[in-house]
């Protein structure tokens, strides 16, 4: 018997010309019996929170980084990256955590746990535990790449030279056995963020992937080989071809040959990445799976564990 895919993915426009993409991985353990709803809420609320952040940044004076500024200076509060990071930490993350919790409570109030569901819950469990999910958020706004992540999964940035950049700090709590979560005791504290100035660190693409993708990879340093391969593919193929292939990559990872876990990815391709191929570059954009991919660039894809083929909502 197969459980439904508990991952979710979405993308929206953000700010005047930006884009946000979010993937979320609802936990598979029986204790997290409504995690598919939890991941769906995480994606929709993540998109909304990023849009509000984009508006906030554009309304402020920090939207444009100084030319030649370092890309990884988010630790310096006075720097533009530091100020954006502060906004993420003080605004986006707490608002997101709060709104996700409120949305879960609203959902469970409107649709209380059934008797069968109650049997799976542990005594004393906070209702939000049933909705547990990770979240990986990527906001592209002008020259800024803003990342926020809670829980396992991977954010792989593909640099212009084909090397991999992993800007989100590693969390020593994630040992491959357990994960931090939106339903955890300190979700705001467990978020990890990164802010990159893409003028200082030019990127071709960004991959957001739930842990089903990385756990399927044979190579320990798979981000490096992924980045090299994708850089080569960007020079050989257009994004329409990549869009057609991405669901099969996710499906292969989710299959019994791979991690046998739900796998969801979103691939964002920058104008520089698009320019490597045969098409005219446009802004980095993102689409929902239902959208017509013909005039879009960035590709979300997902696959449920044990699927014969890719599952697209």
């Amino acid at each position, binding site marked *: 018997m197969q459980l439904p895919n508990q991952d979710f993915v979405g993308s929206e426009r953000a700010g005047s010309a930006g884009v946000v993409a979010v993937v979320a991985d609802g936990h*598979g353990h*029986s204790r997290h019996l409504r995690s598919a709803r939890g991941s769906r809420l995480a994606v929709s609320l993540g998109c909304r929170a990023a849009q509000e952040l984009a508006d906030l940044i554009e309304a402020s004076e920090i939207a444009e980084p100084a030319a030649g500024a370092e890309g990884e200076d988010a630790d310096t509060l006075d720097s533009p990256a530091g100020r954006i990071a502060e906004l993420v930490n003080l605004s986006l993350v707490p608002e997101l955590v709060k709104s996700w919790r409120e949305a879960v409570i609203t959902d469970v109030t409107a649709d209380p746990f059934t008797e069968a569901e109650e049997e799976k819950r542990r005594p004393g469990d906070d209702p939000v535990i049933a909705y547990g999910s990770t979240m990986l958020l990527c906001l592209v706004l002008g020259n800024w790449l803003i990342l926020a992540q809670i829980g396992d999964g991977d954010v792989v940035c593909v640099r212009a030279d084909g090397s991999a950049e992993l800007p989100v700090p590693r969390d020593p709590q994630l*040992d*491959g*056995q357990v994960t931090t979560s939106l339903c955890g005791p300190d979700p705001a504290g467990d978020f990890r963020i990164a802010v990159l100035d893409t003028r200082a660190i030019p990127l071709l693409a960004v991959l957001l992937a739930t842990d089903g993708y990385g756990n399927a990879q044979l*190579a320990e340093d798979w981000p490096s080989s992924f980045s090299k391969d994708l850089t080569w593919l960007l020079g050989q193929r257009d994004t329409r071809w990549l869009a057609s292939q991405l669901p*099969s990559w996710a499906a292969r990872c989710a299959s019994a040959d791979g*991690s*046998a876990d739900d796998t969801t990815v979103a691939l964002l391709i920058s104008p520089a990445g698009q320019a490597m191929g045969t098409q005219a570059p446009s802004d980095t954009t993102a689409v929902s799976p239902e959208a017509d991919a013909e005039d879009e660039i960035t590709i979300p894809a997902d696959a449920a564990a044990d699927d014969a083929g890719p599952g697209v909502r």
Partner: protein
Amino acid sequence: MPGGGVARRPLHFIVMADCSGSMKGEKMQALNYALRSMLPHLVDWERDQLQAQLLIRILAFASAPNWYVPDPLPVSELSAHWRNLEYVPMGRTNMGPAFRMVAEALSPERLERRALRPAILLITDGLPTDPPGGFEQGLAALLDVPAGRSALRLAVAIGRDASSEPLDRFRSQDVPVLVADGTDEIADRLVTASIAVSRMSEVGVNREALAERLLQPGQQRGAHPVLPPEPGQVRLDDSIL
């Protein structure tokens, strides 16, 4: 696809087999028979599930530990090329150094990041004979490694006397020490342990409930329960911190 090949996640299963002098004779014969009997169950389980590639190693320990199967080996390969363990004449039951050796094998530098929660099965007929503090320091080293700490740690005691407080400290909290009252029960206990290792390593299962069903004292005697797979067995056990 970019990134290279894909593969199932490794599930490392380490058997720590007591080969001390007291295992001489019928006990050693029974242990070898039991280990051989256990392997086909693991082969079947690996074939029937989707998520893991089961890789087994065997550490023989007496006065000093010695890897009998040093490199992670597909369980079907070990089953096809099984060679009996032998006891160590005058060998003592020093568990501390054995724990340390397992800890090294499970260190973050040597364990794949994508590996599933490993399983360790300790089989012994006696109390540890380590020098003072040796058992404790060895166990602390094992539990100091994240994978050692999170591993499913099972113990099979050969004889009531072997079911001791040190084994209670080694085992995972949610599983009891399995006791084989006589050599004729060792095979049953190891098969039960192998079922526990396989089923409790599946992700998405309620490990505590499964331990109760598989390993409660009533289940340790006679026929071992072979449970059908549960719905959702292919899910990751992504428990929250």
